[in-house]
């Protein structure tokens, strides 16, 4: 079942299925190592619907809620 990345709990892994949203977001996430097929670990979730912190290919990236909502994933 595909869900959005922001609904993945802390310390859970997920596999990227697709990235909705425009060319800019897709390219930008791609540059940071987030493409369809990549495995992401959600490490932290900030309070007040703040950003989430993920780990991908050994690198940490903070994604705002709005961005995380555009990343469709499958929970591992």
């Amino acid at each position, binding site marked *: 079942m595909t869900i959005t990345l922001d609904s993945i709990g802390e310390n859970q892994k997920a596999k990227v299925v697709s990235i909705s949203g425009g060319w*800019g977001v897709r*390219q930008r996430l791609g540059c940071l190592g987030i493409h369809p097929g990549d495995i992401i670990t959600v490490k*932290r979730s900030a309070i007040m619907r703040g950003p989430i912190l993920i780990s991908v290919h*050994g690198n940490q990236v903070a994604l*705002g*809620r709005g961005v995380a909502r555009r990343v469709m994933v499958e929970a591992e």
Partner: protein
Amino acid sequence: MKIALMGQPNSGKSTIFNHVAGYKAITSNFPGKTVKYELTKLNLLGRTAELVDLPGTYSLTSFDLAELEARKYLLKGNVDIVINVIDASLLSRSLELTLQLLELKLPMVICLNMIDEAERKGIKIDIEKLSKILGVPIVPTVAIKGKGIKDLFSAAHKVGEKKKIGKTINFSKDVEDVITQLSIQIKKKQIEQEFNVPERFLALKYLENDSYFMENYKKKSNVLFEEIAYFQNILKETHGRQSDVVISSERHHLSMNIYESVVSLTKPHTSLIDYLDNILMHPFLGYISLGLIFYLFFNLIFGAGKMVEEPLLDYFYKLIPLIGKSIDPNTLSFSIISGIIQGLAGGIAIVLPYLFPFLFGLAILEDLGYLPRIAFLLDAFLHKIGLHGKAIIPFILGYGCTVPAIMATRILESERDRFIASVLATMIPCAARMTIIFALVAFYISPQAALAVYILNIIVIIISGKILSRLLPEITPGMILEIPAYHIPSIKVALAKTWLRMKEFIFVAWPLLIVGSTILSLLQYYKMDVLINNFFSPLTSLLGLPLVVGTTLIFGILRKELSMLMLIQAIGTSNVVAVMSATQIMTFTIFVIFYVPCAATIAVLWKEIGSKRTLFTIAFTTILATILATITRFVY
């Protein structure tokens, strides 16, 4: 010969640059600190060469202004040799940029930087094999310690002499076919190119739908445009994804494959610093630590500054009456001499004692890598004023100096965000205004009152942010920000950075201060200050300030610290409380913090956000300052 340092953000380009140039480019541990390029001459085995430090860029498809600048420079700037700087601990991701750079067919060397950090993380790289695959020399370095830099430049020299170009790494067969066919079409059409780049590189940019290149061609040739659409479609149909996704996935897989074939993973050595985020990014402890760090920082600046200010001020102000004994105080030469002494004294005794501990502390926080963490913690709050987390970086730099803060807004993606962040950044008390808060409010009233000024300032900025984002209701693009690993700050580097930032004060502000003091002495001698003070009397009487304050406000536009130092001179005593009440000191400080940004800030605003918006900022801040200072007069 021109050598360009090119690489992803935070890979250590500026550190390498500084190793050659001396500390000239600001380095910090956050992605995107370099927003404009920096040049230096170097001696490359007897030949003079030019080295350029470009802003970091994740790929050759650019998103923000800083990345765009790097790409433009590389494609247009007649670069002879590229040094591709890679953070070795992030090899797989970094290779994606490397593959794109290879497409440019320029002599290239790879600098595998932070190799020690990679080893600590358990990443062992077979350098020889990687060099064979890519067809370019690779030099491992630890730039912060200067290790391998010499080898790097001698390798660069060699590839430059031989004009040695790396290999082109092929994509999967069907994608490669499309690229080749499009390249042939581009060559056939012989369209006048703005950039002198290989056809294959252009073909890839078109297939990636890079808006910059697309728009460039839409204008010039419809024929080619149709051709491009045709090939984009082939990829889309055969792969079931947009052509840009196909290309970026291909590149991603190539990089992963190369990475896997040259890297062997061992157990990482964890150190205490890896656990720091359990506190600093914790949903509860994170905010407590943030408050605590800034509270301690505040006390440190005040404690250190006060310790030095008191004895130094005493010393200088004993000096002037001494001179009065040998030169008649009513003569012009006495006026000039005392003006110069007061200018000197202001710099040494009032500004430097607070400036140094502040800039040094800021350098330590930057180099540790704390700033991106603050962006993470405060993202949700910044959304409330219509911005996102990354905007905190220009704001924090704004506590140092407004000019680099406004330059740093280039890391924000949308023009509207850059405008709002720039206006708000002008209201953040920079180091010059900090010395006013510390040397006047904290020194004469109380440290608590100074802290209250800072808190009030933040509240005003939040409200102004809300107003501005109401006026420009556009949704901010969300935050996408890399959170780099912590680095233990090097004291030597932090001192070099502090010195670089203090130079601005010592060589620009200070001479201005001495000249300003002298001019004020002359004005007073010829009684011309009365005219200026009378002109400002409506404002000074509205704020309930002494008439003599009028002149100092003009000097404050030149440099913010001038207004305080001139104040001391204008009222004729360093013992400000003898002349001004606590309310007057507070009113003066509040007005000076918010009113018209200084001359240097106006200049950079003009360049970054345009004349109209700069004039708006000046009007907005002046009105705000008048309202707030009037309220202070009656409430405080």
